[in-house]
């Protein structure tokens, strides 16, 4: 039998995390399924509840950033006026309303599923994560945080406190989730892409693919190659851009889809983004 703890404050939570080896439990929408057993769930370690802590539920604008508390629910993020469009679209397509009322973004991040739907927009939007322990805090870039399926840079005594999303100005945006069905669907692959185009020149571009590798696929070098191009130059380069991305998108076969399909669809979506979305 595992013990469970319900701290009254962030300080108390950090103290518990420091002293014991605990599973942080926010909304529980992944944990309850992963640990399901007859009658009652069976956790391998002791559990600490943190979803109720007000300090972790805040969503606020801080300068040019949106700061999202790790225990803010997906519904709260979906309905917050300052949530960037790409993130809102992705969150709104996670599971179903009942789950979004319960599930949190911190949980979605720390569960570190390659098919976690809030993660690709966080990569694409250059989000950073603030981790806190009793000893202090540190900030990690999204792409440095994920180490593989279910594995992250979070240390035993740390909690993910906030997600910091820079509120950049993108004038071209595309989010597309390809799931198993229209709702309550697990993702076969997804694209999150954004660009800033001014006077016919691409000032900035960001492209992330979900569910096609152990972690989200985003390549800054390839983006760098596109930045600074005029739209005409970019259009001419589409075949070589696709071939560059083809080399780094290496998905797998599983019970939901095939590697061949995932890769083809990612490239089709990228092509569609470059040809259709980037018309303007």
């Amino acid at each position, binding site marked *: 039998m595992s013990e469970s703890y319900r701290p009254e404050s962030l300080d108390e939570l950090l103290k518990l995390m420091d002293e014991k080896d605990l599973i942080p439990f926010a909304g529980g929408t992944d944990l309850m399924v992963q640990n399901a*057993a*007859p*009658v*009652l769930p*069976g956790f391998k370690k002791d559990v600490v509840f943190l979803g109720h802590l007000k300090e972790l539920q805040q969503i606020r604008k801080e300068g040019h950033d949106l700061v999202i508390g790790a225990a803010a629910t997906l519904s709260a993020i979906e309905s917050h006026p300052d949530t960037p469009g790409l993130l809102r679209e992705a969150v709104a397509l996670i599971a*179903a309303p009942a789950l979004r009322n319960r599930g949190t973004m911190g949980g979605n991040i720390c569960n570190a599923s390659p098919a976690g739907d809030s993660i690709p927009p966080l990569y694409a939007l250059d989000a950073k994560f603030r981790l806190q322990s009793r000893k202090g805090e540190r900030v990690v870039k999204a792409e440095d945080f994920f180490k593989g399926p279910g594995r992250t840079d979070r240390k035993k005594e740390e909690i993910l406190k906030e997600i910091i999303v820079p509120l950049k100005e993108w004038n071209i945006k595309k989010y*597309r989730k*390809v799931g*198993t*069905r*229209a*709702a*309550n*669907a*697990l993702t076969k692959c997804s694209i999150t892409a954004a660009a800033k185009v001014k006077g016919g020149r691409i000032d900035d571009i960001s492209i992330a693919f979900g569910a096609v590798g152990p972690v989200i696929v985003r390549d800054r070098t390839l983006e760098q190659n596109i930045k600074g191009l005029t739209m005409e130059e970019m259009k001419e380069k589409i075949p070589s851009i696709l071939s560059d991305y083809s080399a780094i998108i290496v998905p797998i076969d599983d*019970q*939901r*889809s*095939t590697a*061949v*399909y995932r890769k*083809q*669809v990612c490239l*089709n*979506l990228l092509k*569609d983004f470059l040809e259709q979305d980037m018309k303007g």
Partner: protein
Amino acid sequence: MNNISTPVRRLDAVEKTAGYTKYIADRDFGDLLYGKFLRSERPRARLVSVRKPALPDGYYIIDKDDIPGENAIHMLGADWPVFADDEVRFIGQSIALVVGPDRKVLEELVNQFEVRYEDLPAVLSLEDSMALKGGALHNDDNCYADYHLLKGDPDRAFEEADHIYEHTYETGPQEHVYMETQGFVGVWEDGKVHLHGSLQCPFYVRHAVTPVLGVKDDGVRVTQAPTGGAFGGKEHYPDIISTALAVAVDKLKKSIGIFYERGEDIVNSVKRHPSRITIKTALDKEGNITAMDFDSILDGGAFESCSCIVLQRTIFHATGVYDIPSTKLRGRALATNHIPFDAFRGFGAPQAIFALETHMDHLAEMAGVDPVAYKERYFMKKGSVTITNGKIHEEVKLPEILARAKEMSDYDRKAKEYGKGGNRGIGLSFFNHGGAFTGNGEKAIINAHVKVRKRADDVVEIYVSNVEMGQGLMTTFSKIAAQTLEIPIEKIEFIQPDTDIVPDSGPTVASRSIVIVGTLVGKASAKLKKQWVDGEEITVWQEYEEPDFVIPWNQDTFQGDAYPSYSWGVNVVEVEYDPVTFEVSIVGLWNVYDVGVPIDRMIVEGQIEGGLVQSLGWAYLEKMEFKEGRIQQRTMADYVIPTTLDVPAIENDFILNPYPEGAFGAKGAGEIVHNGGAPAFVSAVEMASGKRFDTIPLTPERIMEAGR
């Protein structure tokens, strides 16, 4: 009195929607022990040894050595053992049952068994089965059934053909996903085993259990508990659970429950038969179809269960609604080391209709004709000769059904406008479904009896073995009695089916409940009306009578009328196709049916919509794959059924065609609703994508792979 089709509030509507209904797992049976199966981990192996764990107090292991009678589950055949004896034939087969008070402990105990297997070459495909890999699993040819049909002179037609088109069509397995998982409770009561369960056929369970316990018919009592959906998945599979449970209750004289969790249910219960159907069509100089040759193969899985009867329905529906002058057919159900495949709404007909309709679409495309116009030319009519050289005895109202469906869906305009490969498509399927048991089964096998009893308080009780399982039977049967007796429906009481109380009116299967048993309820009610005396207790019995117009059935040669009546339908599916992701969304659904006269229009529309969505799920979402005999989609997250967001609003209508032998003119409606969704969907996707397909589920992955 109202028109019989006018909807009434279902008798179970309030308690079910409010959540008061106590399903088997909700009921309080006092001190209840639980049972959990130890199952085979290998698709085909010799059982070398089974080392049992040490048991805490109050825990028991039940296995083959505890069976007082036969270690064989009697369905049609009796090849499926209650507990594996010296060999296992599929992953999930029961080896033993562990019984005790704590389900967590039971799970640990099941994991502590040490089972030693000697693997044998497993039969993991139809090819393996035909090659008799590892030696035959069944008889000497791996055929549970190998049937042949002949009509007209197909050999001559193929000899004289100007052109022959041959193609093979395949369909996948399908999980029933009833909302309530499998569940049973057995109690020791009055010196015998009393089983309460979620089931379709109380007398099938009794038939299965009595030889296992070695007792007479009344030596076991079976009561149906409120049943939360079944779709064929609770036709024979409850026999698997209840036989093992009965052995345990008989031995321990304690109350024991077995309740499946969803994952356990998905992986271990039976599924729809996968099919591979090859159709060869002979065309004359003018492009007319002169003959068809079918090779219809079902994967029967590891044990026979009801594969032979499913195959019969597949082959008797091979030519669907079309009158093909000459036909030739071979049908086989093959043994493999997959989980046994069994009954599922439509019972083999959806597989046949998918192959046929898709084949007809392709013939039309080659002829350069709209598929609907092409198919119309071959419609059956009253008097048409069927594939078993029987006759269509009723007026075939397909032209009226089609006209209405076209009107509702605007088919003609859309089909013309969309063209091929324009990312929007509309597909239309034609289909029928024979009502009730095949051939003379209703008389020779079932011979249903019903009882209607008026109590002294003038309330009328209906005694039948057909069950309410969500389809509305309790209400429709009560409606038939009330309308016949001209009394309010509140004065009717539907008695919960219980083998010690109700007569055997047969199983709740085969679209037979209304057309056969409902009709008997109507006849009994009419008799009662004649004898009615206020305040007196009166009991009336009614036995099944075969209609006098049928061409007699020969069960050895499969010649004669396979079914006395058919229901008919058209489904129209409109889709949008995304060439970037190969995804399809359904944007319009229209259905028109001749089910004789619907007994309660709203209940039948419930069947139409539920069956259609189930058929569409099978057509494009519900992928179930076997890898080395093991099912890969093991959760509701990976076995994907449609949600409300996958389905647009559905419009339905009826063409009335009263059937003189059916209560108030009714024919069967429970299964035909699964027959047409898949081919109409595929046809629409062919139009939208400009590609041609032959396999379902038609996933985006398959659409991508299909060549132009």
